């Protein structure tokens, strides 16, 4: 398929193909690495740490917008956590208002991110809402005065070949996912990132929030490199606030009893 795509001939072909491709395969270009392509050594930085840098598809962390993944009865709620979910109203979804998604929902968009890394920091540049996060690799203690923020204070350390990121200082004005699972401001989020090959990176996220969840709630996926679409860069522009005319049409979804 040639792609200087302003005409319809190419588009029509793409559209026909598109109709047949499973949804999970449609967030381009998160193709599974071939065993051969992924069999090389884990890329490393000059100082020997696994090199996480590059463009990565986030599609493996989508969960369909619902961390329960169809098993709502298995969510490890506390009573307040279950009540908070029952009480949520989809019309109040923070990102529906273009508020920042916070953690871990930042990771649930289908759009890619760029990872930059040096000895002192790891930076995540997300396409979705054009948000960045900066992970401090030198500190072992959180800043005591970071609180009530959308992305908190993140410190990271290497445990063998795994980067472990600890994030606190969050507010309770974000949702865990589009489905509306809630969290408290005491939530801690731990990410464990392991580059497993030239074309793969395991990404595990743990929500630790004893007020709302009786045990850590863990999700994981394997990220694949993001390749640019011809004629476009790897990261595109996404400003939610540009034209959010949905707001005026949102209605309550709470059961009326």
């Amino acid at each position: 398929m040639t792609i200087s795509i302003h005409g319809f001939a190419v588009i029509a072909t793409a559209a026909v193909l598109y109709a047949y491709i499973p949804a999970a395969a449609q967030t381009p270009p998160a193709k599974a690495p071939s065993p051969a392509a992924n069999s090389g050594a884990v890329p490393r930085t000059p100082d020997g740490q696994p090199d996480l840098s590059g463009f990565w598809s986030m599609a493996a962390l989508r969960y369909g917008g619902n961390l329960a993944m169809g098993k709502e009865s298995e969510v490890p709620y506390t009573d307040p956590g279950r009540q908070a979910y029952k009480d949520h109203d989809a019309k109040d979804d923070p990102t529906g208002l273009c508020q920042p998604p916070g953690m871990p929902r930042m990771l649930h968009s289908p759009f890619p991110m760029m990872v930059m890394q040096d000895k002192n920091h790891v930076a995540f540049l997300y396409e979705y809402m054009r948000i960045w996060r900066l992970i401090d690799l030198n500190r072992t203690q959180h800043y005591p005065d970071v609180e009530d923020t959308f992305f908190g204070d993140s410190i990271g350390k290497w445990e063998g070949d795994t980067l472990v990121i600890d994030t606190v200082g969050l507010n309770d004005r974000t949702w865990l996912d589009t489905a509306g699972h809630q969290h408290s401001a005491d939530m801690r989020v731990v990410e464990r990132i392991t580059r497993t090959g030239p074309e793969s990176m395991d990404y595990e996220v743990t929500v630790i929030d004893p007020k709302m969840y009786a045990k850590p709630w863990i999700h994981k996926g394997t990220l694949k490199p993001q390749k640019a679409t011809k004629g476009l860069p790897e990261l595109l522009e996404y400003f939610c606030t540009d034209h959010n005319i949905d707001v005026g049409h949102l209605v309550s979804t709470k059961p009326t009893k």
Partner: protein
Amino acid sequence: MTKTNLAAALLGVGLLVSAPVFGHHSFAAEYDRSKQFEVKGTVTKVEWMNPHAYIYVDVKDESSGKVANWAFELGNLSTLMRQGWRKDSLKPGDVVTVQAYRSKDGSNLGNGRSVVLADGRKVFAGSQAEEGGGRGDDRN
């Protein structure tokens, strides 16, 4: 002309089933996934902006002759552009058939599930209705 039941009947056909599309808002708070409908009309405006592209379509009621302008929410630009669509892929004056989910607030608004040109070419396909998240009605 609104053919409320036709779209539902057609949606079982594999060719017309589109993929989940990411939305920044809950689908259930804006659209009713049980109310699918289909209209045919003429594109009057294309809004190529995030978080969703919109198209506006003049739809004529054949019995009364009255024309109503409908808005249809489509996918985000990131997804549409990576699929090959561009701002001028659809233009005012194009005649389209749109399958959509009706808005809950009763306005002339739908979430576009598919947009098909008169010659059958499919444009800007995809609805977020099939996403698992944001149902807002799966609490029990």
